[in-house]
């Protein structure tokens, strides 16, 4: 395989893909194409060894039982830690975000061990967070992340960042991590509660991830459909009394 091909692992789409998060992989392929980059996507099923040589690993959202199963399988495999150590990029959404941290609540609310590639711990919010989520990239967010981030959240997790993680963004509307911050970044590992799917509604995040892989900041390329959707969602939040 040529070195110019970006290899993307879609981790356990059968377990982690409840909220259209498969769209993130489609969006990565699509954005890469706009930038003249070639991608190769590998779907990984639970029980299969995680490919060790991918450039980008993507995890979606899932139900409680599936989330624990996915975390157990990834911990047993050990490949995620190795991938992060050699600088691979990771995007993890919602349940995927929680499970790459140190611990998260299982279906009964008891703490369950995470994969531990992101310095976060998750417990339960007093009330489930369901609705439109709008955030502003954190001042320390990666270069190229300048636009407001838009999506939909549906989770019961209160996520607490440890010293080795910094927030992806600050909440303008919605709940996010539960303490006004949203998501987390550490090195090339990024987690967020933004569904939508996240990358279809926020192409700048896709460009940051692809930029990490190719080692340079990618120029912004706007697409009419995406810009119209973003404008509509921002207007919706404004009218909802942001």
């Amino acid at each position, binding site marked *: 395989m040529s070195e110019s091909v970006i290899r993307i692992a879609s981790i356990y789409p*059968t*377990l982690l*893909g*409840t*909220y*259209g*998060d*498969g*769209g993130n992989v*489609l*969006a990565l392929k*699509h954005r890469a194409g706009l930038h003249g980059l070639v991608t190769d996507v590998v779907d990984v*099923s*639970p*029980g299969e060894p995680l490919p060790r040589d991918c450039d980008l690993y993507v995890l979606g959202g899932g*139900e*409680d*039982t*599936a989330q*624990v*199963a996915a975390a157990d399988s990834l911990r047993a495999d050990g490949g995620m830690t190795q991938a992060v150590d050699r600088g691979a990029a990771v995007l993890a959404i919602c349940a995927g975000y929680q499970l790459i941290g140190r611990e998260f609540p299982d279906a009964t609310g008891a703490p369950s061990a995470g994969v531990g590639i992101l310095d976060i711990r998750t417990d339960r919010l007093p009330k489930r967070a*369901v*609705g439109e989520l709008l955030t502003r990239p954190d001042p320390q967010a990666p270069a190229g992340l300048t636009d407001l981030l838009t999506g*939909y959240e*549906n989770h019961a997790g209160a996520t607490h960042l440890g010293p080795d993680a910094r927030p992806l963004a600050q909440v303008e509307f919605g709940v996010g991590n539960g303490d006004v911050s949203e998501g987390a970044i550490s090195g090339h590992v990024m987690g967020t509660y933004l*569904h*939508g*799917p996240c990358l*279809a*509604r926020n192409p700048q995040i896709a460009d940051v991830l692809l930029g990490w892989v190719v080692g340079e900041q990618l120029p912004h390329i706007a*697409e009419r*459909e*995406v810009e*119209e*959707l973003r404008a*509509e969602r921002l207007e919706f939040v404004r009218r909802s009394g942001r």
Partner: protein
Amino acid sequence: MSRKLRTRMAITAGRMAAATSRIAGRGEGMVVGGRVMLKLAPDAIADLANGRVAALVSATNGKTSTTRLLANAVEQLGPVVTAATGANMTSGVVTTLASGPPDATAVLEVDEAYLPMVTAATKPRVILLGNLSRDQLDRMNEVAMTARKWRKMLAENPDVTVVANADDPVVTFAAEQAPRVIWVGGGQVWTADSSVCPECGTLLTRSDTQWNCTGCGRKRPETSWELRWQDGSGTAVSRLGQEFDLFGLQLPGRFNASNATLALAVAEQLGLGLDESVKRMCQVQAVSGRYAIVNVGAIRIRLLLAKNPAGWTELIDVMPPAPTPVIVSINSNAADGRDPSWLWDVPFEKLRGRTVIATGDRRRDLAVRLLHAEVDHVVIADPYSPAAPLPPEARALDVIDNAATYTAFHELRTRAQREATSE
């Protein structure tokens, strides 16, 4: 006539509220009338049910059509009350029970989340469980949670006979401990919500006709009925080898043949004539506007209800092939689910080679999805207007398929009815 006075008064008040709602042009008034009734007589459902509920029908997809098919079959025994409009929460159920003759047999469609409550109140003879998949995740429980609630419900109602789809592992999990289950091989095309065992979380192993869990040994149960689907036509086959040709069904698609097979299994439990049941099911045309051909504005459309990925996955095969254009209407009101990210679970790639006209409140979400699926599309707020910039090949069609989410579907239906009466 043993109804309590309180229930009788509540019915009168509910009817007045429903009539007021109708006169005000706010729909058919079933929900409002039902709410008033339950407020005045909280145990009205139990009082009105009074041992005459033959069957409850629940599923994520197909419950309205299945209920209609079954109700038509049950009518061979005499009068039947059944919701004509798909009103399936407690308010709809109480309104349906209060309609028609007080001793008529009832066949009721029930929302998945309300099924335990309605089962406890109505004590049905049979419960039909069709399928469970992701739908309105902002309102509904996640799929596995609904299954656990159904399982608990069946443990608490041991006298009921369950007719359940053995090809859906989540439905199987919900039904497997009930004392009396009739398993039906109704098929399952959408498997993404039952990829893991609902009990132990192990990834399920699937072949064309079987599924099993290597973790806890759970597997597809032996069936009493099977749908055989070949070349676009279905046959319901019983364990005894009886075959019932479903070719005459007017409701299209594999999923409706599956609905009919499940309904036939219920008919058997109710002691109905099965040939007569099939004959009566074949008389069902459009159910609450589904597949109806109507005029809306300047065009003529075939109405298709498509509200979630599982439904869409089967519906795409019912549409004419490319390059025939189609209209897709996406809303995100409460009854549609507020979060349309499920659009990304729909295999819209199958629509390549034609133009999709994207409309509805969330047409822009659809446009972004179609952009990524590499499907040609135009975004039009009102494609029914005579001045709408429809592609010429769409304008040239006698009838164009219009798939719509729940509230978009009902808006179109209401608009068609309003325009038909004002002509």
